[in-house]
């Protein structure tokens, strides 16, 4: 679970701006990819399309062979429950404790409160913030807030983890820690796509890098070699 295909996806906004131009990309289940390019190159649009926050103007986006850009409003929530998303401005709720923030997606999914407690603590342990579960986000540092956002994104064990500039306002050391954290999640089978303009950091990670410019792919380097997934590869496994 977690195979993503972009098939000639274009996105034109009502103001005429062309954010993506016929982008075709393949992301194998369990792969890790960095998306780079200057601001306005289309990185955020790419992630928003994948989250179905926008619909493509042309082309289709297949996730596990289902065209997610055509999902009905009723089914969309169930698709999103399988995604984890991290944003630069982390979207934490100021009036909820760290614990309650991380518990949001689990409560949405209808989990029992005692299971929620276990999952939240497991996620907070991964980001080393278990000791601060009772605090409000405002009392945490920026790096810690970002890690709470990551804990929330991974708490429901998503098949796909998306991050938009997750290290945008962090110092290099913290940024590196966060990237290693993403790699840990990737190592347990999660498909990870991270949009970032931090070239040095990205290059040092040794993962696949896709560079966008004016909405088009101008570079697709995979140090692991060649195409990440052959087009005829099994679409998705029966179960996670």
């Amino acid at each position, binding site marked *: 679970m977690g195979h993503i295909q972009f098939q000639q996806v274009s996105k034109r906004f009502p103001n005429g701006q062309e954010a993506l131009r016929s982008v075709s990309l393949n992301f194998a289940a369990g792969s890790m990819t960095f998306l780079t390019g200057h601001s306005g190159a289309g990185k955020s649009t790419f992630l928003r399309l994948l989250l179905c926050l926008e619909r493509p103007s042309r082309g289709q986006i297949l996730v596990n062979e289902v065209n997610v850009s055509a999902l009905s409003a009723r089914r969309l*929530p169930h698709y999103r*429950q399988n995604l984890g998303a991290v944003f630069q401005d982390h979207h934490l709720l100021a009036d909820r404790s760290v614990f309650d923030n991380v518990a949001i997606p689990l409560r949405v999914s209808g989990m029992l409160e005692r299971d929620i407690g276990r999952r939240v603590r497991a996620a907070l342990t991964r980001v080393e913030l278990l000791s601060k579960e009772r605090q409000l986000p405002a009392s945490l540092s920026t790096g810690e807030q970002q890690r709470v956002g990551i804990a929330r994104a991974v708490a429901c064990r998503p098949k796909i983890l998306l991050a938009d500039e997750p290290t945008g306002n962090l110092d290099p050391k913290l940024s590196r820690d966060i990237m290693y954290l993403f790699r840990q999640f990737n190592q347990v089978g999660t498909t990870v796509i991270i949009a970032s303009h931090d070239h040095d950091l990205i290059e040092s990670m040794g993962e696949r890098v896709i560079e966008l410019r004016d909405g088009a792919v101008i570079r697709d380097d995979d140090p692991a070699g060649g195409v990440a997934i052959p087009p005829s590869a099994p679409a998705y496994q029966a179960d996670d």
Partner: protein
Amino acid sequence: MALFGARKPRDPWPRPRRQLTSWLRDHRRSAAETLGFVSRRFGTSLLVWLLVGIALALPAGLYLARENLISVGAAWEGRPGLSVYFQLDAEPASVKALARQLDSLASIERVDQVAPEQALKDFQGFAGVAEAIEIIGRNPLPASLRAVLAPEAAVGDLEGAARLARKAAGVEEVVVEKTWLERLLDLSDLVTRLALILGGLFGLGAVLITATSVRLAIESRLEEVRVLKLVGATEAQIRRPFLYFGAFYGLGGALVAAMLIALALLVIEPPLTRLTASYEADLKAEGFDPMFLGILLGVGLFLGMAGARLAARARLRSLDVA
């Protein structure tokens, strides 16, 4: 199967089968959270309750007034009817004949005959009457009939009976006793229509008040709504806390309305008692009972939730996430 060729991928994101318990849990959480939110902003909530309460109190009060007018009409001794007074020398046989004739009409429930002797006996109870009659030296009272309108008949049917009576032999005068009752019925009709119009307008007002308040609540929690959308909450889940908002506002408003009406009844009861006492009737304001309270709360709940739905539909659909 080849006909349907293309392999249809199995749904990778099945709608999770949610258990009733998880649904109830979700409701309990929404209700608790909303209650917390409402009580944290108690000043604002109180204002909304007062506004909704006032909007509900007026039509509800008019409804009570109408109920009481109708019960006054019913409690009044005797329904509308007509009295037929005969000439002093009228034959008892013609009195009996007219009585039978009137009694056979569908619009007449019953006919009471009052012979001159009976009338005199009834009359002698009044102070001074006995002396007056002694001076006159004979019974000055005629035989009379009183016909009572059947409950299902209209007041207008009395006219037909009156025409019949006027043509009968030995009849001196026919009096149709309907004027004050007609006025009362007209008044209760007027109050009913007034209550309907005001009920519609003020009900709409209550809906708009809760819609505006819920809209404000949504605005103050937009960030939460965005996060919920992002992590895959369904529309129903996102809407739920706001529907509880509407429910709490509507119920609170109905309680305020009930208190306002109770207060109003306390204030108008003394003069009302004096007024009804002067009509020799023992009437009390009625209708303010558990049934009335239940309906009031139900209407408040419904209007509050309608307002919340309106606000949630308008705001949440168009919301841009993240």
